Each structure stands twice: as C-alpha cells, then as structure tokens.
C-alpha cells in the first residue's frame, strides 16, 4: 500500500510536471504585445517596450526562464505578479485570496453534498411521485437556465425578501449565506442527479433484492444498502471538488464582491501575467491531481473491494 501510494504520487508528480511545462511553454508563445499595458502600446516607443520586456526577463530563452522560475520556486519564492497586481508578491496574493474562496467553497461544498444527497435520496424514495418531479425540475432548471439569470435574481430579490446583505463582508456571517447558496446550487443538482441515477442502478442489484427478502423495510434497504453503494462512485468525484473550492466562481465573486480567486486565472491569462499564471496553474494542477488521488484513496476507503495495489 505504501508502495502503491508512493508510486501514485510519483506518477501524479510527472503529470503535474508535464502540465506545468506545457503551460509554461504555451505562455512563451503568447504575443509580446500582450505584456504591455494599453498606454504603453500606444505611446511607448520600441526601446521603452524592449526595456520593459527585458526587465521582466521575457527576452531570455524560455528554458532559461524556466530554470530561473524553478530555482526560485525551490527557494520558496513564488515571484511577483506582473500585470494584474503589479509587483505584488504572488504568495501574498494567494494568502489573501485563497482563504476567502476556500472558506465559502468549503461550506458550499458541504451544503452541496448534504442538500444534494438528501435531494437525491428524496427523489429515489418518492420515485415517480411529486418529490421526484420537483427534484428533476430543479436539476433541469439549474442545468438549462443561464446561471446569471437566477444568480442575479437571488442576489437582488432574495436578499431583499430575507433582508440579507447584498455583498460579502468577511465580518458579517449573514452576508455569507447567499454566496454559499449560490455556489452550491449547481453542485446540489449534480449530487442529486448522480445519486439518483446510481441508486436506481443499484436498486436492480441482487443484493438489494436479497435485503428486501430478508424482510428489511424499504427505507432501511435504501439507506443501508442502496445508498451505501450508490455513494461509492460519487465519493471518487468528491475530492475533485477540492479544485472548485480554491478556484472559485468568477460570476458569483463578481456579484457579491468577494475578494477571492474566482476568475483570477482567467484574468491573469488574459493579461499575460506569466508569473501569476504559472503559479496558479501549478497550484491548480497539484490540487486537481491531488483531488483525483484523494478520490482514489476515499474510494478505497468506502469500498472494501478496492485494494490499493499497483495499477
């Protein structure tokens, strides 16, 4: 098992390295113009621009840049943002932003899991009845309606009805409710949908019939047998939510003025803030691969059939 985990970590590391390398190199193909602030493109002359690029180290060979980056990374220096937050140390940025996003993300994940699973259970329990129809309606709604419409509605109207703050404040717990709920809406639908599907699949299994034959009431069969098995495939996906926790949602963070990481990567890429992009990609890749890895571990934990061995 230790050997397996070590091997997995090693393989994950390889993936991370490849992902990082690909992104790093892709970034070097970006147009040089992208590095300039608007006014510089219009006003600065060739020499000024070059001076600017040289100061950023962008004129060196990509491999030299890579070497420099890796060296600094091992020294614990994440570098400074270039264009998005000029000169601000990336470490500072991450320390400021990740906790905010992760905090809301964590609670929304929790809400998503709890509400989603309850909803899925309800849908199975009352299959082909009103509970199921309502649940399906909700899932459809969330998947089909452009999210901005209902997110907007939640922010403006729901906040009015329940007298909740319009934007997020780190010292007002009431203001956390709407962002958390908004963040959780789609994952509730996701969990409900898949739990229902897996449970319906499991219901046809022999052991469920056997459990019924044993004389257990339907509720208990659903809970102890069907549900217990249906969450196994779900549990493998659960840690992949880790990434969502720290990457945040651009729309929701914009609406609620949350100073988090939502859209940070997109902004960084669009502004060609190489340093920031690199660190974020590295971090996200590590987290997402960690998520997959944790998913496997969790799977092995909830499913006794799975043994953590090679391959």
């Amino acid at each position, binding site marked *: 098992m230790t050997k397996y985990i070590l091997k997995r970590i090693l393989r994950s590391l390889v993936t991370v390295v490849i992902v990082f390398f690909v992104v790093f190199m892709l970034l070097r193909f970006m147009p040089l113009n992208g590095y300039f602030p608007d006014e510089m493109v219009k006003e600065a002359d060739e020499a000024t621009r070059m001076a600017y690029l040289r100061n950023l180290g962008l004129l060196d060979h990509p491999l030299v840049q890579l070497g420099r980056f890796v060296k600094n990374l091992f020294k614990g220096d994440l570098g400074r943002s270039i264009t998005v937050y000029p000169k601000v140390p990336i470490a500072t940025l991450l320390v400021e932003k990740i906790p905010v996003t992760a905090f809301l993300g964590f609670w929304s994940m929790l809400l998503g899991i709890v509400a989603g699973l309850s909803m899925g259970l309800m849908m199975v329990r009352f299959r082909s009845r009103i509970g199921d129809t309502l649940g399906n309606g909700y899932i*459809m709604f969330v998947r089909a309606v452009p999210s901005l419409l209902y997110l907007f509605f939640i922010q403006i109207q729901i906040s009015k009805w329940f007298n909740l703050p319009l934007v997020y404040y780190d010292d007002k717990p009431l203001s956390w409710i709407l962002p958390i709920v908004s963040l959780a809406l789609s994952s509730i639908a996701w969990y409900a949908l898949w739990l229902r599907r897996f449970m319906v699949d499991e219901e046809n299994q022999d052991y469920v019939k056997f459990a019924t034959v044993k004389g257990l009431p339907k509720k208990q069969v659903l809970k102890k047998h069907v549900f217990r098995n249906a969450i196994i495939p779900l549990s493998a996906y659960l840690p992949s939510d880790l990434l969502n926790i720290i990457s945040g949602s651009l729309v929701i963070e914009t609406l609620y003025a949350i100073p988090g990481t939502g859209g940070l990567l997109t902004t960084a890429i669009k502004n060609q803030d190489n340093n920031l992009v690199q660190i974020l990609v590295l971090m*996200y890749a590590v987290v997402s691969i960690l998520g997959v890895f944790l998913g496997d571990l969790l799977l092995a934990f909830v499913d006794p059939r799975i043994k953590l061995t090679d391959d």
Partner: protein
Amino acid sequence: MNLPENKLRTLQKSLEKDPALFTPAAFSLAESEKTGASNYSYWKSTLRTFFRSKSVVVLCAVVAAILVMSFLYPLFSSVDPTKVSINPLDWNHRPSLEHPFGTDGLGRDIFARAWYGCRNSFILAFCIALSDVGIGMIMGALWGYNKKLDPIMIEIYNIMTNVPSTVYLVLLAYIMNTSYLTLFISMASRGWIVEARFFRNRILSIRDAEYNIASQCLGTPMRRIATRNIIPHIISLIIMEAALCIPYSIGSEVFLGFVGVGMPVDAITLGNMVNHGRASFTLHPYQMLLPAAVLCIITIAFYFLGNKFADASDPRNHV
C-alpha cells in the same frame, strides 16, 4: 373421494372424451421449434419505451418545431435580422404585432434574430456534437482495443483535463481570429477526450464479449469487427451522447465568448443574444428573456430527450 356420488359421476363424465382423440398425433418439427423467445426487437423496444412518455412526445414535437422554424424561417422570411436603424426612435421597441419579440438596442427584430440565432447555434452544436462524439468514439475504440495505448491515453487525458482551458483557449484565440471555425476547433479539440474515455469504458465491456472472440476466431478483420460488432452495439450511446452534447455546446458558446474564442461577436447566435441582452436587462428584460427562453427550451428538451433516450436504450428498461 369425498365428493357425493352424483357429482362424481358428472365429473367422470366430463373427463371422458372422444376416444378418437386418444390416438397418436402427427409430430411436426416446425411446430416444436416455434420459439419460446418473444419477438423482441431492440430498436422497436427502445423507440416504444422512448415514446411512451407523453413529455417525450411533446418535447420531440417542440424540438422538431424549433428545428423547422430555425431552418425554414431564414429561408422564407423577408425580415433582415441585421437591419440596423439609425433612428433612435426605432430602438428598444417592446414586443408588438410587428415585432413579436420586440426590437433590440439598434432596432433589429428580435424575433427574426432568435430564429437566425437558433439556426446558427444549432449548426454549430451539431458540428461539435458530430466531431466530439465521432472523434471520441474512434479514439475511444482505439484506446479500448489497444492496451498499449492505455498509459499514454490516460496521461493525455490527465493533461488535457488539467491544463486550464482558458490558457489553451486564449492562445488559440491569439492564433486564430474569431469565427465559427475557431469556436468549432476550440470546442472540438477538447471535447473528444471526455467522449473517448466514455466510449473506451463502454467498448472495454463489449470487447471481450464472446461474439467478438468468435469473430476473432473466424479471422474477421478489425474494420469489420468495428462496423458490424462494435458500432451497432453502441449506436444508442452515440445518439445519446450526441443529444447531450448539443445543449452543452450551445451553453459553452457563452463561456467561450467570454474568453474570446466565441462566435464572431456580432454573429447572431443564441449565446450572443443572451449575453448582449444582459446589459439592458433591467430596462428591456424582453431582449434577454425571450432568447433565453428559447435557449432554455432547447437545452431542457435536449437534456430531457437525451436522458430519456439513455433510459429507453437500456434493455433493462424494456418492459
């Protein structure tokens, strides 16, 4: 026998038959081979299960109507969806008889734009569904059949799903200008890997089926194994995946527009209409709501039909 005498007699009499019947009957091999198996047909059952639900019938009709409208309206209507009025008085008209969905901020007819948008979005979505599912299926088949490819493909999968799409898309947007083709490439170049994995798992489960081994024993070439043994078995999955791909593609258009590889920004697509309508949402909600409603109907219809079809194509549900 506890029965009364008279009843017993009646009984015996009723059990007594024509003695001629107690002679050997002719044996017919054909009669004996009449199968006990039902006249089950996969496709018939699938379709029957599929259309049994009333909502499926209704949604199919809705989708058909929308499709017909999207493709016929631009052919037969004389309303130019790009006709801009330079007179501000023509702008932002509320829905009326002349303009059933009203006009937008430049006096263009939203009703006409909605159908042109539907058509464009559909064409794109169909292309993407076709390529995603098509490439995905071929790669998935190769992946499933060739064990040696497994580690490579898994690594490709990991990398493709881990390189943030924005990095890749922004770069693509730099290399290519916005057009249907760019959007198509940017979506199709990533979508296939997920489909490939899906089909790989499905194909793995039928790869070792006995009828495939039988074909192997008969020396059937790979090409024919694929066309005769594999594809017919996953065709329903293909249809389902394609159906689910369509609303996904239409939905992604919006995101991709944001990143900069969307449709040409002035192209008439549902995504663009919804996006642009958002700005004036508070004042002219119909500019966004009506196209959004069409978008929702399409999305819901395809999701619903796709899922229902998935259920219907599962032989377990053929009851």
